[in-house]
């Protein structure tokens, strides 16, 4: 599983052994890190920039391009296609959104989801509405574009939706498939929840199967068994090449509730601090209104270079 996480998770694993690195073909290595994408984009940006500023020095341009790429500021004002192109881009965009607009949340203002979409469009001109609608579903369990929500709630739901969009779509398919197979053969069993539903009672009574009376009411169980669902998701993760959360996060969610609906699962993911720290761009929810501390990528090279330059010049 960890090997898969290394190749399929967006971020490179910090402890790649030499064997892992060189066992990939050159094409795979370059594709894994989206290097050709960035180089082509750099050249395209240079050409676009040159039209307005013909005297630009390409070396300087590339220096700035890769410097901002490393710091994670490169997705600001870029088109949506670029923002969603790589995991690093998506994570950087989420972080940029947080840095730009966290002041709004600080004063306790509640905005509706449509207004958050407008904010997104300020930093990404063609950001699609449907992704924001999906984010609303995570928060409200329905496409409630006019309901108010806090910045923090929106931010973490948005992070999950944008960073793991393909994974969530896949989970939804798996959930629906499992639900149809689970419901058909068996009858209803008791749910421990307090809510009762008269129409469900009559429907349940009409179905075949054993029921164990609890206060005389039988109801169809919501959702699926967590273990069953999470097992199916984890099994799927191994076959298909999309990015997915670490297995530990999923197992943690599974252990917290014996049954869950699809949105119960998704909400648990959005609130999961271990998922948040595995993506690594946003602070824990309690610190969301604090000032950002450091850029998302750190390298030992830059500090080493500074140290060497501090020494006196070597005689040539």
């Amino acid at each position, binding site marked *: 599983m960890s090997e898969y996480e290394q190749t399929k998770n967006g971020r*490179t694993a910090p402890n790649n052994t030499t064997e892992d*690195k060189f066992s990939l073909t050159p094409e795979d290595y370059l594709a894994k890190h989206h290097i050709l994408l*960035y180089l082509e984009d750099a*050249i395209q940006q240079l*050409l676009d920039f040159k039209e307005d500023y013909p005297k630009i020095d390409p*070396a300087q341009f590339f*220096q700035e391009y*890769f410097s901002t*790429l490393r710091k994670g500021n490169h997705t600001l004002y870029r088109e949506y296609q670029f923002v969603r192109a790589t995991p690093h881009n998506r994570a950087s965009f989420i972080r940029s959104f947080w840095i730009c607009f966290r002041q709004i949340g600080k004063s306790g203002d509640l905005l509706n989801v449509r207004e958050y979409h407008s904010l997104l469009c300020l930093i990404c001109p063609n950001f699609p509405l449907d992704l924001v609608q999906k984010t609303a579903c995570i928060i409200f369990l329905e496409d409630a574009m006019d309901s108010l929500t806090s910045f923090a709630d929106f931010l973490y739901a948005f992070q999950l939706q944008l960073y793991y969009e393909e994974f969530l779509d896949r989970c939804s398919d798996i959930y629906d498939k499992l639900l149809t197979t689970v419901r058909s053969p068996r009858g209803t069993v008791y749910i421990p929840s307090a809510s009762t539903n008269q129409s469900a009672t009559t429907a349940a009574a009409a179905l075949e199967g054993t029921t164990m009376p609890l206060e005389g009411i039988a109801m169809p169980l919501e959702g699926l068994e967590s273990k069953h669902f999470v097992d199916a998701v984890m099994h799927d993760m191994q076959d298909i090449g999309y990015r997915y959360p670490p297995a530990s996060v999923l197992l943690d969610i599974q252990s917290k509730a014996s049954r869950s609906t699809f949105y119960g699962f998704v909400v648990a993911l959005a609130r999961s601090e271990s998922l948040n720290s595995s993506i690594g761009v946003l602070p824990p929810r309690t610190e969301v209104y604090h000032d950002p501390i450091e850029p998302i990528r750190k390298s030992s090279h830059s500090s080493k270079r500074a140290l060497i330059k501090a020494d006196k010049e070597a005689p*040539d």
Partner: protein
Amino acid sequence: MNSGAYIVIHLAAQQIAMKEKQTKGGGWAQEDIKKSRLAESSQVNNWIKNALSQLVANRPDDPIAFLDQFFGNLGENTNKMNQALELISISHHSNHGFSQNATSAYEVLSQPKSARHPAGVLGGTYKTFLDHICSSMPVEIYLSISESLYKVLDSSNDNTVEKQVCEAVITELEEILNLSSHLDPTSYVNVGRKLQPDYLALALKMSAVNTIGLSDAKFITSTVDSTVTTGNMTQVLFTVVTAVSGDCYQRF
């Protein structure tokens, strides 16, 4: 770099070059603008090719940081020593790309100041280069060298070495380190003389026999202490280990 990797780089560079040509389009007003743009695009192509070949050869864990550094170094005014040091430190010496990096580092350091001077790495430059590399060496390296020295001396393979042997070696090391100095190049000749097999054998013979062995921990701490406190004696230590281990295997 194998042919497969070269093909990838070539194709990638071609792709990028084609994209450049597509978007350039149109006619340019003047011939010289056209020429300078073509020259520029071939320069950019070269950068891209170099970046890709270094990436594929070295496979850094953080390629974006690598590219940031690569393009940061494109400027002319980067110190040659820094360039060479960064080339050497890109990958571990066990990696495929290391020999390529070492060659590039050599080429950077050996560039002559002007056409009249001969090309080659000056002794002083080489020494400063080694100094910089060794300055970032952790104490663990001294520890592991001492451990291997202890193992070599442990001829009976029971994790103990006779005290007289240990003390003889430690004394010899201390004498050697006191002998050599930066200021006097001929001191290294004296050091070499002291490390010859005859002298070492003599030193061992002259110490008294004692059945109580010195534990490896004590041996290691005393050798590390004496080497670390006398400063940058890395070269000496390497010479010592190779001399002792080579010689012991020959004799016993």
